[in-house]
Every structure is written in C-alpha cells, then in structure tokens.
C-alpha cells in the first residue's frame, strides 16, 4: 500500500519497543466475536488502474461546457479564470485544517478575513462569517438566527426562494414546531405572481425570507415587504445571487438584516452540486448570534498584525449544547475560490459578467417569446433566468431538446405542481448567440408554434 510507508523491519522494531508479538495484539480490546470481520470491497487498484476506471466513468457524463446548456436553478455555469483553480490547488491551503494554531495558520486566517471583507463589500452588509456549507444551509442558519434573536416562532418564506432551500429550512426548523408560512405562486394573464407574502407578516413573525432575484429570475422592489417587517419587529432575510450584485442594489442597501446566498457562481465548479460555499452576512449588532467561524484582526506582543478565529464564545467547542449552531467547519477552500474570483475580476469584471448575463438572457427571452405558443411568464425585469410556459409538459420539451444535443431548463413542475408546462431557463456570459438560436429553433420545433 503506497500510502502506508512502514517497512516490515520498521514495524517489527516498533512492536519490539511496545513489547508486543504482532499488530493483532493491539486489538485485543475488541470483542473477538466482532474482531477482524470479512469485508470484501474488491482488489486494491494501482493509481494507473484507478485513473483509467474513473476516466471511463467521467466519459459517461456530459459536461455543461461547450454545448448549448440552459440549466441554472441554483447552480450556474460561468467562466472561471485559470488563476482561481491554480490558487485553490495550493496544498498549503488544501491540506491544512481549521486554524486552531493561528501562528502557523495565518494563510488560512488572512484569506478568510479577506473573503469576509469582499463579501461585505459585495453585499453592503456589515459582517460576514467565514462561510457555511451552501445556499440551503445559509438560509436555514439565517432562519435559526432570527428565531434566537426575536424569540418568536413564526417564519414567513417566499415561494420564490429556491425550493431545495425551503426543504432544508423545513428539515432544520421542523423539530422545533415552528410555524412556517409559505406564500403562493399563481399564473395570471400569462404572468407569474406571488400572493400572500406581505400579508403574512405580522407581529409574531421572526423573519421573512425573500429571494432577489426570485427563483424565477424576477428582480423585485423589496421595500414594501421589508418596511412592513421592520414595523412589526421582524428581521428581513434576503437570499441573493452574488453575480447579480454586479448590477443590482445589494442586500445592505435594501435594509436586509441577514443576507444569505449560494456562493458557487463566484468561480466555483458545478461539480454535480458540491462542494459549494454558503455566504452568510448580517448587521453588526447581530454578530453574536451569527453561527460559524468568524475571523478577526489581532496583534501580537510586538504589534504585528495577524488574524485569529474570534467571538468563539458562540461556538460548539466552547458552548456545547448552548452554541449558536453545531457547525464546526466552514467551506474554507471553496471560499478561497470565491475570494480569488472577486479579486481577479474586480468591480469592472464583475459588472461585465452581470451585464453579459442580462444581455444574453434578455435576447433569449425575446426570441422565445416571439414563438406563438411560448409565453415568458417571469415578469420583467429579470436577471439571467426566466420561465417560459408552453402547451406541452416541460419534461417532453426537455426530452426533445436533448435529442438536439441541448440541455434545456429546470422543469418547474418538480417543485411547483401547477407549473407542469413551465421551464426555467438560464443564460450567462458563456452562453453564445448561436447556442440561444439553436435553443429557439429546437423549442419552436418541439412546441409546434409558428411566429
């Protein structure tokens, strides 16, 4: 075994030091009835053999790049500068662990401090932690935070929040018997409309969770909901898309108390859903209820600047059952990807990405909307996603697109039964006009519409 370097002679000499006849005797404490079971997991492969096997499995997958591809729905295909991957593969970052010894972990700590700062700059929020697992856990932790801060037991959540995030929220808060109220989505006059969100906010509401843009891509004015919420003493939780903040008014400017997001669009590979990075920010006065690792600036005895894990009195290793969360890791390596992406693009690069996304999506929606039997049901303005509805089940349309080598959209009926004929489509800066045109032609053929 290549990763176990002990030679037989070394093993024997170590056993001699221990006064033991064999390694088996190290395990006598384990009841004989269960000791050394027969386990068969197949032969040991060499690196060459396993490489061939995994490469063959990779060949069975069709990557999202280089082909017409219109799936988004919470994970986004963007251009990733080569320097992002190069920096993430520095093994000083990838093979270290939680910075318990700050003197030899300044690399991780400074990077996390910079990540926190970049996300604050991007969102207009005052404080950001060193990250949580993903978008879903960011939303769930935001809700738990609001429950602790307000002492209330009612959460109002927009149906325009990613359906998987809402499912995770339910799993996290369900056991506490929390009153979880979700608004409704309806289609009126060919347009999606949300009903019952602002109406549901009352003085028992701990927080209201809204998504900007919505899961359907729409950009909305959040002022009414946030004003009513604040008047009622609740907290405003905004779920945002970080790419969109190259253009859009950020959560801090809307008056969000807590902001949560999936950080994957910031230079992170799709990787079939993970690992990604959850972004969680809040107002400064709420920081003692913010879960997860937080890095702060410190000085040593000689006055040199350094960084440490701080405000640890919130955390499980100190507070045990009284901690703000059980979370014990952050997505540090992935946050390095996001931090280096933001640093490499800078304000002008990120704005260009956001604008390009908007332009291509706008073009695609205009072209598709011109097909007689296709309705663009996401209200304008939208960012880089929009929903279309046709007379046919979305699954059938997608299957027809796949026959043309096109990966279509997210079938909205999977989460919203009343939207069985609707597809959520996404375009980004890597989507070309030719790819959009091939989509439009294939949709026209699939739905049989003229125009």
């Amino acid at each position, binding site marked *: 075994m290549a990763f176990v370097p002990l030679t037989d002679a070394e093993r024997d000499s170590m056993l001699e030091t221990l006064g033991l006849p064999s390694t088996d005797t190290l395990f006598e404490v384990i009841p004989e009835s*269960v000791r050394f079971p027969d386990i068969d997991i197949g032969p040991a492969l060499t690196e060459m053999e396993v490489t061939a096997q995994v*490469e063959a499995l990779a060949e*069975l997958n069709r990557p999202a790049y280089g082909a017409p591809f219109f799936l988004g729905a919470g994970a986004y295909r963007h251009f990733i500068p080569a320097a992002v991957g190069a920096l993430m593969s520095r093994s000083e970052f990838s093979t270290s662990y939680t910075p318990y010894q700050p003197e030899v972990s300044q690399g991780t700590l400074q990077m*996390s401090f910079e990540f926190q700062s970049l996300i604050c700059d991007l969102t207009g929020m005052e404080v950001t932690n060193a990250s949580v697992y993903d978008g879903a856990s960011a939303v769930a932790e935001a809700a738990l935070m609001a429950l602790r801060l307000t002492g209330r037991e009612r959460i109002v959540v927009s149906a325009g929040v990613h359906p998987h995030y809402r499912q995770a929220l339910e799993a996290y808060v369900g056991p506490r018997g929390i009153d979880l109220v979700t608004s409704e989505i309806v289609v009126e006059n060919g347009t999606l409309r949300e009903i019952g969100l602002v109406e549901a906010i009352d003085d028992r509401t701990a927080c209201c969770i809204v998504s900007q843009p919505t899961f359907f891509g729409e950009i909305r004015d959040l002022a009414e909901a946030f004003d009513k919420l604040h008047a009622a003493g609740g907290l405003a939780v905004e779920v945002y898309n970080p790419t969109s*903040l190259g253009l859009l008014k950020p959560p801090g400017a809307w008056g969000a108390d807590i902001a949560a997001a999936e950080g994957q669009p910031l230079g992170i590979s799709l990787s*079939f859903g993970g690992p990604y990075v959850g972004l969680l920010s809040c107002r400064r006065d709420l920081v003692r209820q913010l879960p997860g690792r937080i890095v702060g*600036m410190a*000085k040593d005895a000689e006055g040199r600047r350094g960084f440490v894990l701080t405000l640890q009195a919130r955390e499980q290793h100190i507070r045990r059952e009284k901690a703000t969360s059980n979370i014990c890791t952050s997505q540090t*390596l992935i946050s390095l990807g996001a931090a280096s992406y933001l640093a490499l693009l800078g304000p002008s690069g990120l704005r260009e990405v956001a604008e*390009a996304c908007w332009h291509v999506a706008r073009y695609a929606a205009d072209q598709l909307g011109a097909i007689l039997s296709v309705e663009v049901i996401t209200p304008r303005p939208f960012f880089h996603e929009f929903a279309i509805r046709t007379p046919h089940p979305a699954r059938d349309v997608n299957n027809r697109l796949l026959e043309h080598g096109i990966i279509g959209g997210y079938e909205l009926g999977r989460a919203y039964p009343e939207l069985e004929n609707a597809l959520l489509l996404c375009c980004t800066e890597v989507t070309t006009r030719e790819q959009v045109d091939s989509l439009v032609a294939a949709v026209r053929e699939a739905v049989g519409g003229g125009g």
Partner: protein
Amino acid sequence: MTEALLSELSTPGRETIRIGRPNVPAHAIDIPRELLRDELPLPEVGEPEVVRHFTRVSRLNVSIDTNFYPLGSCTMKYNPKVNDAMAALPGMRGIHPLQPEETVQGALQIIHAVQELIARITGFDAVSLTPAAGAQGELAGLLMIRAAQHARGQEHRRRVLIPDSAHGTNPATAAMVGYEVVTLPSDPRGNVDLEALEDLLDETVAGLMITVPSTLGLFDEAMLRVSELVHRAGGLVYGDGANLNALLGIARPRDLGLDVMHSNLHKTFTTPHGGGGPGSSAIAATAELAPFLPIPFVVRGSDGGYRLDADRPASIGRLGSFQGHFGMLVRAYTYIRMLGTPGLREVSEAAVLNANYLRSRLSQSYRVAHDRTCMHEVVLAGLRANGARTLDVAKRLLDYGYHPPTIYFPLVVPEAMMIEPTETETKATLDAFVETMLTIAQEAQRDPELLRTAPHTTPVGRLDEATAARNPVLHW
C-alpha cells in the same frame, strides 16, 4: 513577516480580468434605476498581483504537504494527488447537479458505489452521502433517531445521553434537534461509567451519542454491553464515526450495536481538509432507521441505469442544496478503490501501531491519560515534571516545524494533548517528533521562559485573542 491586504494593494483604474461583450444584439439595460446599485466597492488588483498575493499568503500556513500534523481526532493523513486529478476531470467538475440523469450516469454510478462501499466497511444496511460535513451528519443522525422514536410511538423520549469526553458538536447537535442533553461520566479507565449509564437509562431517553473509538483514543472495554443496555431501555445508539480510521477492517461499527453513524470522508477517506472545510460525511443506518435517511440517494433501476431518488416519504428531508459534496465523493471513491480489501486493515493497523509507538516513547517525559493500549491516537496529560503547560509545549513545537496536537481536548483530561500520527508517516518522522518532544520537556526544566514566549520563528507571535474578541475587527 506579514502580507498586505487586497484592499491595501488596490489601485483605482487597475486593469483586471475582462469578460468582453456577448455577441447578442446590443440593448440598453432597462432595469429601473431604483433596483440597481450605485457603486461596487471591490478592490482593484491585477491578476499578477492577486496570484502573488494569495501564493504568499498560502506560505504562512503549515499543512500536511509541508509538515507533520498530528492534530488529534482530525486524521491529518496524506491526501493522494490522484484524488484531486480525478475530481478535476471535465466530466466530473463540469456537470450540473440538475442535469438529465442519462447525461450523468458516471457520476451517479460513483455515488452509488461509495454508498455501497461505506455500507460494507461499516456493516450498515443503507448510506446517504448528502451531509456536507460531520456536524451535518450528526444532525441527520439525531433527526433520524427522533423520527424513529416517533415512529415507535415514543415521542416522550426527550433526552440524549452524551459522554463527558464527547466533541462539542454532539451536545450542540442534540440541542438543535430539541433534545435535552445529559452528560454521562467516564470511569477511571476511560470507558463509559456503566453504573451511571444504568441509572440514567429510563423511558425519557431517546438515545446515546457515542464516539467509537472514544475521543480519549480508547476502545470502550464494554462497548457491546453499552449498546445492549441502551437498546434494552428502548433507546437508540448514535455513533460518531470521526475516529473510523482506527477500525477499517478491524471491526464493523454496526456489529458494535450502533444504529446510525456518520463518518467523515475528509478524515478516514483522504478528501482534503481545505483549511477547515469542505468536509464531507456519510450517514449510515440499520434497516430500521434507513427509511429516515436524508434525501436524495442514488438507486440502480432494473434496467441497470442509475437515478436520484428523492421520493422517500419517511425521510427527515433535504439538508443541502443538492446531493452532497460530489467532488469529495469522487476523491473518496478513488482512494477506497486503491485501498481495496487488503488495504483497509493495513491502514488501521499502521495508524494504531504508530499511535501506540508514540504513547510508549513519549511516556518517558509526559503523563499518559490512560495507560493502556490506545487506538489511532494517544491522549497525554501534560508534562511529568512541572515547568510548562501544554499550551507552551504546543507553541514551542511550532518553532521546531510541527503542527501541534489537539490541546485541552477532551475536556476531561487536564492539560490534554491529543496526538494522532495517522498511518501515512514514516518511522523516521515519528522518531524525530519524539526527540523533539523530549527536547522540549528538557527545555521546560532548563528554560521555561523559552516555552512561555514561544513561538519564536513563526510569521507572527502569540496573538492577543482577548482584545480581538472585545473589539472585533471583522473586515478591512
């Protein structure tokens, strides 16, 4: 030696990476003004400076690839480079989580295989790979115990027993699920105190959370009895599998009477620790608890095709955005295939031999918390002679180029130093570490001030954490 912050490297107008205009017809952006942002205050640093910056920052870390890193309970073993290469294949890295199943059969097959391999290694009936990290695996496990107790009509069981040596995530998780935490004492040999266990077990107890082997680096001498007592009282046993690296091919956790257990792919199965994450966790369960596992799973259809199954009505639900940390599953798959049947036992035998070798040699100058054969890690209880505290020993180790062991944990051992060498170290590395530890013990006698003011050679000295927490500066 400190490095400037990106904000300090920023120069207005600096050229950064450009994307260019898309080739669709130009159109003025007609989003209403009040929905747009005014300014975007990100730093402006060019690519050459960004790359140099983060490269220089990286060098302020020690890591497995640069230094011996015997951080107890973290299993800092070598992470094979081929793992990363496989996860970076375009067919793995470049696939979207919601793609049609027929376009991701290779990925689904890998998830299915890891589910199967971990089931075999641990002896459980079913495995879900969706938890993002160990703590989320624990959350899944406790939600499952709650669901199973409810299914048995035992909603009144509101208490969870947790040994006093447990990791902080155990009580924090139990509290998140709404359980009352009851601390279970250890006996002088580091086992669960059986009398205390029997006294506490009643119809209010939903279950026991137990780390196997324990955070004391010990295998409980009455493990089977512990499980039996909990089961007889109507409770379920949660296994914290953080220390699974001691048991590969040695014992299957299921055979020890555990009902549900998480394991950490970033420990035992060599996915990178990443400076504190991403983790990745497998949650494994008996047939009784399997229906409650978090969704989605990968199942194989009668046509031989693989698909994601999220339709499990009894499931505790979805914990993450998609189907877990797939990139880590590719790495774990690659590693487990290279281990194969013979490699399993070889890993744990060497990990346990190395820990016992350190125990034996270090006992010359350090107290051993429990003087019996340990598993994959050994817990020391400070220096035999007075002179310096564990913190000072740890800080002095930094000067000699070692990442220190885990210190002051478990909480039940005074001056604890938890040392986990793992199986991937040579005898020469272990011997050099021992010599250094013995040298430090001598220094503690000769020149205690040298230890109290350590480290002396690191980029910064001991940092003032108290002031940092009192007046937190959390962004530039």
